[in-house]
């Protein structure tokens, strides 16, 4: 058990390192470099060369990578050559903002989808299921940017109750950003809910058809009790992974939605950094996202342990 956890952690660290290497290598391939980007239209070859020198771009990539990763381990992601400021200073506020959306989306989506998924699973092939399944199908089939655009049209322009775009900077206080979080959260929740609902539904149906649930029913206990005590823990088990995957996706994949809402999150920063060839920022984003991904999976594993005593106690027939 302890051994398992340690191995799990070690593999998590390894995964993060590997992704850092991959990203670093890929980013090296970007054409045009930050020096030309910073100097922009007036770049003369000499100026570019000087700046490259000043920015340390002329040393071997491996050396730079090792130094960088050593710094990253201490939370120091170096200086952004574009803004000249520490990467961490730009990164954290953006990450915080994305987390704001991510956390509220996860809260909304997970609650909604577990409830809806269970209802759909229990009322399999009857009208509640039909309605829920149809809605999720639509939710899955409409791209996020369409959802976002429609929401803006509806709730910001036609009935102006919520801001259409975010005017604030990344460093604005959380309270100022809160109204702006609502629409992105809805747009993302719809998509995410759709996926989780379907998983939950399938898994509830599977579990409800299982022998132990039948046995519990044949014991004559009430249906809510059968569902909550007997079926749910097992039914949520496969859903956990889906949730973890979705959370990880949220952190990296909100770019499109953030773009629509001009939301100063990590997705926005990512798009900007790709355009600016701001490698240190990109690497930092990639490593942070990988870390979140790995942490989510770890959390899912821990959740699975909580739900599944077989994993917790390590005994039984696990080989």
């Amino acid at each position, binding site marked *: 058990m302890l051994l398992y956890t340690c191995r799990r952690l070690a593999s998590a660290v390894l995964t993060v390192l590997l992704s850092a290497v991959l990203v670093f290598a890929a980013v090296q391939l970007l054409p045009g470099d930050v020096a030309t980007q910073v100097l*922009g239209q007036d770049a003369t070859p000499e100026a570019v060369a000087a700046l490259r020198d000043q920015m340390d771009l002329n040393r071997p990539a491996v050396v730079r990578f090792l130094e960088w990763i050593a710094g990253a381990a201490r939370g120091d992601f170096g200086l952004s050559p574009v803004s000249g400021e520490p990467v961490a200073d730009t990164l954290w506020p953006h990450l915080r903002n994305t987390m704001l959306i991510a956390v509220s989306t996860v809260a909304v989506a997970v609650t909604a989808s577990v409830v809806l998924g269970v209802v759909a699973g229990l009322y399999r092939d009857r009208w509640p299921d039909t309605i829920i399944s149809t809605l999720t199908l639509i939710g899955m089939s409409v791209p996020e940017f369409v959802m976002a655009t429609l929401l803006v049209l509806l709730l*910001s322009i036609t009935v102006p109750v919520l801001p259409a775009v975010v005017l604030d*900077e990344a460093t604005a206080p959380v309270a100022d950003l809160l109204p702006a979080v609502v629409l992105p959260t809805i747009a993302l929740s719809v998509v995410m809910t759709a996926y989780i609902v379907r998983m939950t539904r399938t898994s509830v149906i599977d579990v409800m058809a299982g022998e132990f649930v039948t046995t519990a029913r044949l014991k004559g206990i009430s249906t809510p009790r059968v569902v909550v005590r007997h079926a749910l823990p097992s039914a949520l088990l496969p859903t956990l992974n889906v949730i973890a995957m979705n959370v990880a996706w949220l952190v990296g994949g909100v770019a499109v939605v953030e773009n629509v809402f*001009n939301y100063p999150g990590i997705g926005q920063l990512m798009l900007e950094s790709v*355009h600016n060839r701001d490698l240190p920022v990109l690497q930092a984003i990639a490593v942070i996202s990988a870390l979140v991904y790995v942490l989510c999976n770890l959390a899912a594993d821990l959740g699975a342990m909580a739900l599944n005593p077989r994993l917790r106690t390590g005994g039984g027939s696990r080989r």
Partner: protein
Amino acid sequence: SRTGAEAAPSIPEGAATGTPADGGVLRIARPPASQAETLDPADSLSAYEYLGALYNRLVRMDEDGEAVPDLATEWEPDDEGSTWTFRLRDGVEFHDGTRFTSADAAYTLRRILDPDLASPQATVLSPLLSPEGVHTPEPGVLRVELDAPNFEFPALLSNYHCYVVPDGSGDSIGETGIGTGPFRLEDFSPGGRGRVVAYDGHWEGRPVLDAIEMFAMTDIQARTNALLAGQVDLLSQTNLDFATARVVAASGNATIARSVNAQWYVLPMLTTAEPFTDSRVRRAMKLAYDPVHLLEVALQGTGVVGEDNPVPPDTPYWTDHTLERDPDRARALLSEAGHDGLQVDLYTSTYDPVFTPMALAYRDSVADAGIDVRVRNASADSYYTQVWMQQPLMATYWYTGRPADQLLNQIFRTGSSYNETAWSDPDFDDLLDSARGTADEDRRRRLYQEAQRLVVEEGGAMTPMFADRLVGLSREVLNYRESGFEFDYLNIGLRP
């Protein structure tokens, strides 16, 4: 026939005028600049809204393209046009309380000429002037001795790089923004948001507004949404496409103000890149297309045709020289140059909503001449760093409001940093030099017109049209007036 314009509610011609309420805060949405954005006028490439609010020039352009007083009250050349004397306004104070004198004006000019700073305006001014030629005989007088005679000199000082900054402020001006303008800087972050507040001590009097807030937004759609949702009052540096303009005009919150002929669109051919090194190919590209078609498709007629000449039709030095559209001749020229069935990539992006329609219309239009244009979409954010002056053919635009001499020198002269076609023609350069030194108004005009003729015939820039800028603004905004790169900051205000 049923044109789109007819089917649509028409687009308002101008902004509402009237007596605005005292005070108020105007919120402007603008495209984000890079993190390197600076408020240093000599160096700035994007912060127009700030510059106009914070600074004054010695000379400014009025709406007819004439030079009129700003911080200089009057000026006169000597007979050859090589020494200019400017009389400066008295009793003007900078935002930090220091007095404006000729030393500040001289410092501003010398700074622009400083090769280390590499100001874009330096390419225009340094052929005429060296730092030693700037003299301050008295606090209220600036004398400039030119290296070569130039009768257009004051007009060149109306450029937005020539805003006057306090003497010795060079290191900090990029962040402090201390000028003599109607607003002073309160807050500014490069590429992000900022705020300027009314400067009570402004020499022309206090502006109507209390403050102006600027917000940066990448996506035009986001800017438009913010306007429609009432989150901002004005979209600056944004020419809305016709369809969007209709949506804005039809909304309850916002409307459109037309800024007539405010920008011209260009398809610059890089004359140093194949196949445009051959002037026959350039000529063919120009002969092959029909600017009227481009104007109709891309602007729905909200502009005038450009005839490949960037000098606006209603300005003093304009020439009516044109190339008649002739696809057959174009085909023949291409054939002569060995480029039968020419295939070229034309880059565009969503940076401006007119680029893509213009590119598509061009593509359509030249098909008759057997030219196959492939429109390539590039990312908006890196458009001006990765595509402009890098790709042989692309779509771009310029703001009008530059004096003809500045325009021709800056964009077409050999070696100028803004020479986007990398065109180099000694005859053209000579023409400009002699025009500048010519005292006779008529003769000068003819020389400038001759230069334009060369641009049309030989140059690399296709200039299909001048566009009215369709500016989205809130229905609350009164007295919105824009010329060149700045608004009428004193009078703009909100409805009471």
